[in-house]
């Protein structure tokens, strides 16, 4: 038996493309300046999140990077989720077309074990020295580039004061006005862990109590897949409570004129951590390292924290007080429910299944 990745799919796609070329549809073969060893010129293929994240990251980090290195051309390939990024990278494994990937920690850990990423060379990425040990990868792979956490979204008209406990999700007064993203979304997986902890359970062993509790919440949930997204649902008044990321929540809170707020309830929350990774056998490795170094610079970290409220992962980023108050604290002051990435990769399937079969009601 052979273990393969989706390389064959890429092959299939290539065959299809070849066939299309043969039938006269034409098309240009993707090329990369692989031979270029200079770190300040060439091409760079980045894979990262889509939507508002892409907009803000482009404005806060990519544009200044381009201004600094005008000879490096950046191709941004956007994906809706880290899982989709992983899938794309698996498909390119034998013939990588991506240089740098910014994705969720739990997914990049999988990528590391699957041999999709390279170790980071501290000499080529001097700013790695500013990343504290806890945010470095123990195996020397891509470090944490930004942090966020799961927050509780609330309608400020209904809640003039932010709810203090996750228990509000079970309050019958708000039944039918709640949106919860079910697993495999990280939000739903996090809520499972948080509920388990609230019930005094060790979720690495069992989530039975959490499931029983979540079942009580389920009939009051209006949607398990909010559209267009969890934030707009609260902003438009479709719901009054929801699960969301703090960073985007803060951003949309401003966008909506504070119609929606986001808070960290006292029982704790789960970090959402993004790492920056260099793809193994990246076609433009030098440019990739230059980019990773820039992404870890105080300048880039501060700019993105101001733009989208992600907490920096480096020690030398100095945030203005009003931004600092709104990014997730990384100094230990926030009650964090640890969701071990390796555990999560084995639990994702099971928890998703459990939600579908037992928790989500029609």
């Amino acid at each position: 038996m052979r273990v393969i990745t989706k390389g064959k799919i890429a092959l299939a796609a290539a065959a299809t493309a070849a066939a299309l070329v043969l039938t006269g549809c034409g098309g240009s073969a993707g090329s990369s300046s692989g031979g270029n060893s200079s770190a300040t010129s060439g091409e760079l293929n980045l894979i990262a999140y889509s939507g508002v994240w892409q907009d803000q990251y482009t404005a806060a980090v990519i544009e200044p990077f381009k201004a600094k290195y005008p000879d490096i051309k950046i191709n941004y390939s956007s994906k809706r989720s880290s899982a989709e990024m992983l899938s794309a990278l698996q498909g390119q494994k034998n013939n990588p077309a991506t240089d740098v990937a910014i994705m969720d920690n739990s997914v990049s850990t999988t990528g590391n074990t699957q041999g999709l990423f390279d170790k980071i060379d501290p000499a080529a990425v001097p700013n790695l020295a500013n990343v504290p040990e806890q945010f470095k990868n123990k195996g020397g792979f891509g470090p944490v580039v930004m942090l966020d956490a799961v927050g509780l979204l609330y309608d400020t008209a209904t809640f003039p004061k932010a709810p203090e406990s996750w228990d509000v999700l079970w309050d019958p007064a708000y039944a039918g006005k709640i949106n919860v993203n079910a697993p495999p979304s990280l939000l739903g997986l996090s809520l499972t862990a948080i509920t388990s902890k609230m019930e005094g359970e060790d979720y690495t062993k069992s989530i039975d109590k959490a499931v029983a509790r979540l079942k009580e919440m389920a009939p009051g949930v209006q949607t398990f897949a909010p559209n267009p997204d969890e934030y707009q649902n609260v902003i438009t008044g479709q719901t009054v409570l929801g699960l969301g990321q703090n960073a985007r929540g803060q951003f949309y809170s401003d966008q909506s004129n504070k119609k929606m707020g986001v808070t960290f309830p006292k029982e704790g929350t789960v970090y959402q951590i993004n790492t920056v990774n260099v793809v193994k056998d990246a076609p433009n490795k030098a440019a990739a390292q230059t980019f990773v170094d820039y992404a870890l610079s105080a300048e880039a970290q501060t700019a993105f924290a101001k733009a989208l409220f992600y907490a920096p992962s480096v020690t030398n980023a100095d945030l203005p007080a009003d931004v600092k108050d709104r990014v997730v604290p990384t100094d230990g002051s926030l009650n964090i429910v640890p969701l071990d990435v390796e555990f999560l990769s084995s639990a994702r399937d099971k928890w998703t299944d459990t939600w579908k079969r037992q928790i989500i009601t029609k």
Partner: protein
Amino acid sequence: MTVTQTEAPAARRAGAAEGELEKSTGRRNRRTYLALLIPGVLGLVVSFVFPLAYMVRMSFNKGAPDGVIEETFTLDTYIQPLTDPYYWRVTLDTFQMGVTVGLLCVLVSYPVALFLARSTSKYRGLLIAVAIAPLLTSAVVRTYGWMVILGTNGLVNSTLDGMGLIDTPLKLTNNMTGVTIGLVEIFMPYAILAMISGFGRLSPQLEEAAGSLGASKLQIFTRVTLPLSLPGILTAFLLVFVLSISTFITPRLLGGGSVQVLATEIYDQTTGLLNWPFAAALSVILLVLFGLIIAVYQRLTKKIGG
């Protein structure tokens, strides 16, 4: 072969020549037809046969967590859904949704199609265009439209609330009700088109004849119009059924995660859990379901002489 100049009667000679001419034109035509088929067949092979074969092969692989695919030959991907009551329920729900949407869609489209088919107005073309115009808008946009209309603060609920008919908003989205309403509207143009083209044998003369022989309007409808329009109705039902059970966008967006059908399950397995072999197996099961329905349809159309 050439025409031989022998002492055979002139008439025979002429006939033979004609036959030869016909044969060679026929051959030429056949060759032209075959040549004309090549681009289409090639396109089908590249865009349909090849991916389908690839999907079937994929369904026998083994999916490990986190997207690694083990190339092997296992039936586990089929045994799992076929022995799991959850997937039976999902399949049954998918089937039920298809039947419900198909029936409702036929019900609301039939009068429109009948009117359009029989209309002698000079605006008939325009009216048909208007009836199928929604096809020009993406199903995504129309689904979002329904989300706005059916939402808790949507048009329907705020109107009913304003009239004092309800206290708490009706739950019209994020469930099967919303998905059904959305799908029926989205597939109406297909049903209308299918019925208009299927009403071929329906002729006003037959209805007039029935009327002149003393049949009441109801009798004309039940004994003449309806039986003659049955092939069109069946085609429309089949089309809408097949479209409904394979649609993903509307169940996903209007279902709010609570509507689990085969298409949404395939999506979750593919993009969320990266278990492609399992997703491929579910797709094959869906395909088999299509095949069964089409077989039943062909039996039925033969029976009613469609």
